[in-house]
């Protein structure tokens, strides 16, 4: 508010200034206006100031309005149902406690349910009540994993809001085109301008946004400045071509194979090898084929590296895969992205072999190895201890080329007794292989794995399964938890899987868990008190599932 400044009041304002000056200096040094100096001067000053103070307050006038903010864009999505809005407020109010440790109790962990709530709300296309946007933005600010879903749900008004509060700048960066000057992707001039003048983060955001809409346009945009970019930037930009990669990108990538930077060359080669039709893939196939062959008569006198006789004609002999790793890494290989120098502790030749095989199109091998299917090829023994190296390279190739048939073959039978699995494929690699399969097949395989091997190794594999878990997978997990409880261990040995189950189990499974809620009689060999803790853990699981069912119902996603 402004203190009155109308002409009639000007003397009053002056008088007030005089009082303040006198008060600051003290009446010993300065006599208040309109009074005599002496012992009563301070009282006279206080009297005058009291009148003036009340007068100033009573005479307050409103301030002049500043320029009004631009109105926020309309959010055309339907409003959230009231019950869901209340739920959201509760989820957002639940901040993780100061200490992550300690027992988790029987109550659900609301923070962990927020991502799921956002996913459903986004799928249903609801708009949030505007007053929750600050809490939503704060939540997204603290948790980068929440940002994409939270910002999608928050909608246009959140971006409007983020421009007014520096704490929420991340929203402008994170949203494609959400920057201070959001370029419309149709506006070629603006795009070009931002691409040439923007900050690095803005340019990356622009490129990936454009790439997801129009892959060719993004590639062409990158090509305009490619030669002048710094090496680190080239690497990041090149990486954003991973999305929407197609045969059209080959000429650009082929040219990047001659880049000054080794990392850029390696990335270009990796992208090209993911295009089975590319010239690089063909070159790699030729090189890899020269290293791997079927040897029919490994133990008998040499008759050449067979090929004229199919496996069916020689039931007596077992075909074996023979591997002859490359003897040198020639400049051609290096140009195609093969790294010549092996990391410490690895033989050079096996290092080169691995790179050749992983970059060769998987289709090569059927042709090369007697028309066998991937499963038959994986089943073949490999001579001279090359199996680990060869299968690991095939795994990487299957993941890179997203080849379900090969993934299936390399994963093998989930209940196979050898815990290491075929080709000593690590859990991480298996999780990646599972990623190339369809959701149902993935869930089924993991269910089979858990049924055979229990939960102790399953965490990583469960992480790649689609949510909510398919029925067989959910049942396998619950059964395995039940077995673990009966075995007498403590539930926190399985807290990772429990947490996943709370978030991923289908809520309709809750009724199947009722029998597990009671505290069981303690078996003799059980850990003390474990039964009670298990009951508590299952209670939390059931409560969380019920809560998720309620959440879904509130959002109308029956």
């Amino acid at each position, binding site marked *: 508010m402004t203190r009155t400044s109308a002409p009639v009041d000007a003397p009053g304002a002056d008088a007030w200034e005089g009082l303040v000056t006198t008060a600051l200096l003290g009446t010993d040094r300065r006599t208040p206006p309109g009074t005599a100096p002496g012992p009563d001067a301070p009282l006279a000053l*206080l009297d005058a100031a009291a009148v003036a103070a009340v007068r100033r307050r009573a005479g307050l006038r409103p301030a002049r309005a500043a320029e009004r903010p631009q109105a926020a864009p309309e959010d055309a999505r339907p409003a959230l149902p009231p019950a869901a809005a209340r739920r959201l407020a509760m989820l957002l109010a639940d901040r993780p406690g100061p200490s992550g440790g300690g027992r988790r109790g029987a109550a659900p962990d609301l923070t962990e349910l927020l991502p799921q709530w956002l996913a459903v709300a986004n799928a249903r296309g609801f708009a949030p009540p505007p007053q929750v946007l600050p809490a939503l933005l704060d939540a997204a600010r603290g948790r980068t994993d929440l940002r994409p879903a939270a910002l999608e749900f928050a909608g246009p008004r959140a971006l409007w809001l983020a421009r007014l509060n520096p704490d929420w700048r991340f929203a402008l960066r994170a949203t494609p085109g959400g920057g201070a000057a959001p370029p419309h992707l149709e506006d070629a001039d603006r795009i070009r301008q931002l691409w040439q003048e923007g900050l690095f983060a803005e340019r990356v955001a622009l490129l990936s946004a454009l790439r997801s809409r129009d892959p060719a346009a993004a590639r062409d945009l990158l090509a305009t400045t490619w030669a002048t970019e710094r090496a680190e930037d080239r690497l990041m930009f090149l990486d954003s071509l991973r999305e929407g990669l197609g045969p059209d990108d080959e000429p650009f990538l082929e040219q990047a194979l001659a880049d000054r930077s080794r990392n850029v060359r390696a990335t270009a080669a990796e992208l090209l090898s993911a295009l089975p039709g590319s010239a690089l893939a063909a070159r790699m196939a030729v090189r890899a084929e020269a290293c791997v062959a079927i040897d029919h008569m490994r133990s008998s006198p040499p008759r050449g590296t067979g090929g004229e006789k199919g496996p069916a004609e020689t039931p007596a002999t077992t075909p074996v895969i023979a591997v002859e790793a490359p003897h040198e890494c020639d400049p051609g290989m290096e140009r195609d992205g093969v790294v010549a120098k092996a990391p410490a502790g690895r033989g050079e030749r096996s290092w080169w072999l691995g790179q050749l095989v992983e970059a060769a199109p998987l289709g090569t091998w059927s042709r090369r190895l007697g028309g066998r299917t991937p499963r038959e090829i994986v089943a073949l023994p490999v001579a001279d201890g090359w199996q680990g190296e060869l299968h690991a390279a095939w795994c990487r190739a299957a993941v890179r080329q997203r080849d379900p048939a090969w993934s299936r073959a390399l994963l093998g039978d989930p209940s196979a007794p050898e815990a290491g699995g075929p080709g000593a494929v690590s859990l991480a690699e298996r999780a990646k292989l599972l990623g190339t399969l369809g959701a149902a097949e993935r869930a089924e395989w993991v269910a089979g794995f858990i049924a055979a091997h229990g939960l102790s190794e399953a965490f990583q594999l469960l992480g790649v399964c689609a949510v909510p878990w398919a029925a067989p997978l959910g049942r396998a997990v619950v059964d395995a938890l039940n077995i673990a409880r009966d075995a007498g261990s403590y539930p926190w040995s399985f807290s990772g899987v429990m947490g996943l189950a709370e978030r991923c189990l289908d809520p309709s499974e809750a009724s199947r868990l009722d029998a597990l809620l009671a505290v069981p009689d303690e078996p003799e060999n059980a850990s003390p008190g474990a039964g009670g803790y298990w009951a508590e853990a299952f209670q939390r699981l059931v409560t969380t599932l019920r*809560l998720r069912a309620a959440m879904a119902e509130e959002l109308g996603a029956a």
Partner: protein
Amino acid sequence: MTQQGVRWTADQVLALAPDAASRKAGSKLGAAGPWSEAGSSDEGTVWGLCKGSGSKPYQTVVDIADAAGPAYKCSCPSRKFPCKHALGLLLLWAADDAAVPPGQAPEWAARWAAGRRERAEAKRTGAGSAAPSGSADPEAARRRAERRAERVSAGAVELEQRLVDLLRGGLATAEQSGYGLWEETAARMVDAQAQGLAGRVRELGAIPSTGPGWPVRLLEECALLHLLGRGWLRRDRLPAGLAATVRSRIGLPASADGPPLRDRWQVLAQYDTTDPRLTTRRIWLHGADSHRTVLLLSYGAAGRAPELTLPVGLSLEAEVSAYPGAGQPRVALGEQFTPPAPAAIRPPGMTTSQAVARYGDALRDDPWLESVPVTLDRVVPTPDGDSWQLADADGDTALPLTPAARSRPGLWRLVALSGGAPVRVFGECGHQGFTPLTAWPEGPGDAVALC
């Protein structure tokens, strides 16, 4: 009176929580999982068994029928009051008909509720007969009041002297002397049983560190303190209303003996301020028929929520009685005729110019008034440099927000709600600016609490 007909809102329940940790813990228990055998009776009793960490579930029972506020009983060892189980049970009851079905209270719950009601009844009849005996010795009471008035007068004289010394030496010295001096003077005022003076003196100590313009603010506050002290010393020459205002500003106890005013009171805002010893809850009510805006105060000791809980958006029919003093908004809640229930009515609003004029008028009755409650209609939250203001949508005037309101999260809820469009805002308008407390969107929509 019973409230069985109306289930509460979750907000209403959560406002009972003594602190944020209880609110969180209670929210988690507000789901069917840990509860069994829960139910609610027509008499206003809610009960349930909550599975805790032990083998025996906790027995939780809440009596919501009492107009003075709910009563709780839980077999858990928590010292929080109400405990998380009581909160969880009420949340469950508020949210879910099926989980807490109507029924007959089990023996353990019924026994407690009946015992409680008997005691409450006995107290009421007892209080009725005890009241005359309390004032049995009016002579002694008069002497006590006189003695107190003398001590306050002595304090006021001492304070005057202190202010005179300050102005003789100049306010510039106050910047160096810091808090200590004022703390000591405040302690003297506490000894003089003048809490109102003590509070104002304590605030004087903080003013020199409030940044540019502090001499103006310090002189204003010193002068108003002087005005209050003078008002006390000459109270017999003041009009009765103003004298009562002075007594209440000084901090003398008074009882709400104004005539009861019955109205449909709508809760405009509820917020708590805490200091280490005391939680003070302020609840602003607006009468739909009388158009009066009144203030309920409720106190809680540290760690306990004030008992009275009326979340924004509810409305109840009740009688209130004003405390003495001209221009004082404070009332006491008397008899309640309906339980608080959600209501979609909004208070009528005014422009920013009218709001400022309202404050100026109110100073006539109470020159020490910091702010008045007003509802602004059609204002747009507008950034103004580092600060914010509420600008009239249809004019070129605006009210700046108080410095405190600028740093509260409620500001961003208000800005988000508006989205650049006009909103209706209830708050406190004073010489420091406007403190928004509650807002309503232009279109349909519930009240949004900003505090």
